[in-house]
């Protein structure tokens, strides 16, 4: 049951045994190095939750409803897999780079106190993510909701809530050949005693219907802030005074702007869509929804 639950949560939020994994890895590092180590994760979380907000700029003027699932494939660039430590004690030199959370091996640096080791990464070139979402639209305005009931992850609890508001711009411009809309998104993910993620995004997007096929694209400004909470376990013994201290580190994702292009297939009440967004981390998003 636990395995199935873990798999479910990975599929939903790439966060099953993340709790133990992150705690064990983060425990090696003080704030300065953890910032660099965890930065790509902060960006991925932002990239994931700021994706999948739209696939159609047309908003119903009467009443519309949709429910579906968005799945993402976030690509991690090689330059986000390693970093040069800044927190080495005096007498140590960072002779090589070490892994970020998505890198491979943690480095070991030789110096006057013996070897200091850094944590390994997850050795990932991409990470998947998925979450459910529903929309209700009325009079050219659409409300989007993302929600998961509280899920137990080990001793901790996971909560997800997000919403978006979209408004049709093209309804005010007669004879426009494409639909245009603007959208605001807000998402919040919390895993107690581990991380707290807040995302906001604002986009303008356009779509053009070609029979059952719909092509769309958009520009989006976005921001992500992540608070990581962890216990510094000091396996290297470099700072005994801070051992077992609980540390909270705030990071901003490097995701700030993206360009998206995609296409959707409308088959009666079912819609399949796929798009790709170019940004700090590229993301391929697919969706399946029931709409009317």
């Amino acid at each position, binding site marked *: 049951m636990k395995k199935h639950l873990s798999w479910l949560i990975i599929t939903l939020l790439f966060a099953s045994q993340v709790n133990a994994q992150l705690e*064990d890895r983060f425990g090696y590092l003080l704030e300065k190095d953890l910032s660099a180590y965890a930065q790509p994760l902060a960006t991925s979380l932002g990239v994931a939750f700021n994706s999948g907000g739209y696939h159609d700029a047309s908003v119903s003027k009467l009443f519309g409803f949709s429910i579906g699932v968005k799945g993402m494939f976030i690509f991690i660039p090689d330059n986000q897999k390693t970093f040069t430590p800044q927190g080495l004690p005096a007498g140590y030199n960072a002779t090589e780079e070490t892994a970020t959370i998505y890198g491979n091996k943690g480095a070991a640096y030789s110096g006057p106190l*013996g070897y200091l080791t*850094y944590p*390994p990464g997850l050795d990932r070139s991409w990470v998947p993510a998925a979450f459910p979402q529903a929309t209700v639209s009325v009079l050219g305005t659409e409300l989007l909701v993302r929600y998961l009931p509280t899920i137990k992850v080990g001793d901790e609890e996971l909560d997800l809530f997000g919403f978006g508001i979209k408004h049709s711009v093209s309804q005010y411009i007669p004879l426009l050949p494409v639909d245009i809309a603007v959208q605001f998104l807000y998402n919040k993910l919390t895993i107690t005693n581990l991380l707290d993620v807040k995302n906001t995004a604002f986009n303008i997007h356009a779509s053009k219907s070609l029979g059952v096929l719909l092509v769309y694209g958009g520009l989006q400004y976005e921001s992500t802030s992540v608070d990581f909470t962890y216990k510094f376990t000091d396996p290297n013994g470099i700072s005994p005074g801070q051992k077992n201290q609980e540390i909270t580190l705030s990071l901003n994702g490097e995701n700030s702007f993206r360009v998206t292009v995609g296409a959707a297939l409308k088959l009666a009440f079912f819609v399949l869509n*796929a798009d790709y967004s170019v940004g700090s981390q590229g993301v391929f998003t*697919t969706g399946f929804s029931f709409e009317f």
Partner: protein
Amino acid sequence: MKIINKLLLFVALTASVILLSSCNLADSLTTLPVNIPISVNFSTGGNNSTVAGSSEFCLENNETFQKYQDKIKKIKIVKIAIRTVSYSPQDMKGDLNVSVKDDQGNVLFSESLTDINPGDYINTPFEFTLSASEIEAFDNYLQSVLDANRSICFTGSLNLQITNGNAPYVFNGALDVVFEAETEL
């Protein structure tokens, strides 16, 4: 209709890749490669031109090893270095031999450095390049001991043949070793 079929196939393939990568991610989230650094100190000295010392060390005494002991599936050597802690006289020079034996007395590693100045290795320990046979010897011993559920212990030895400087001689050094343990969470 052909376009629709191709799009459906594309979406199905994409969904499969995402599911497969999720399973792959699950694997990477259940294993954790842990670096275990260990330092063994030696205190040697005397009036003879050869000073020597040895010291036994066991992974069980390491806090990181203790934390993951029950979850370790595999363990291997990564790095080994010799470090000077203190020495006298200051103009001391010599030829240094460092060796590591397993708990049965078999030599796993033995390297010599000639005409060294111990002061060079205080801030910058000398990192040995492990040969393929040395890595194999270490890893075979580590795996056999792990499989037999015995304590993983070594004996580190150093021998310094002094070629410059006047007695009495003091050489305090340390052998720094990094192991990597593959753990299953």
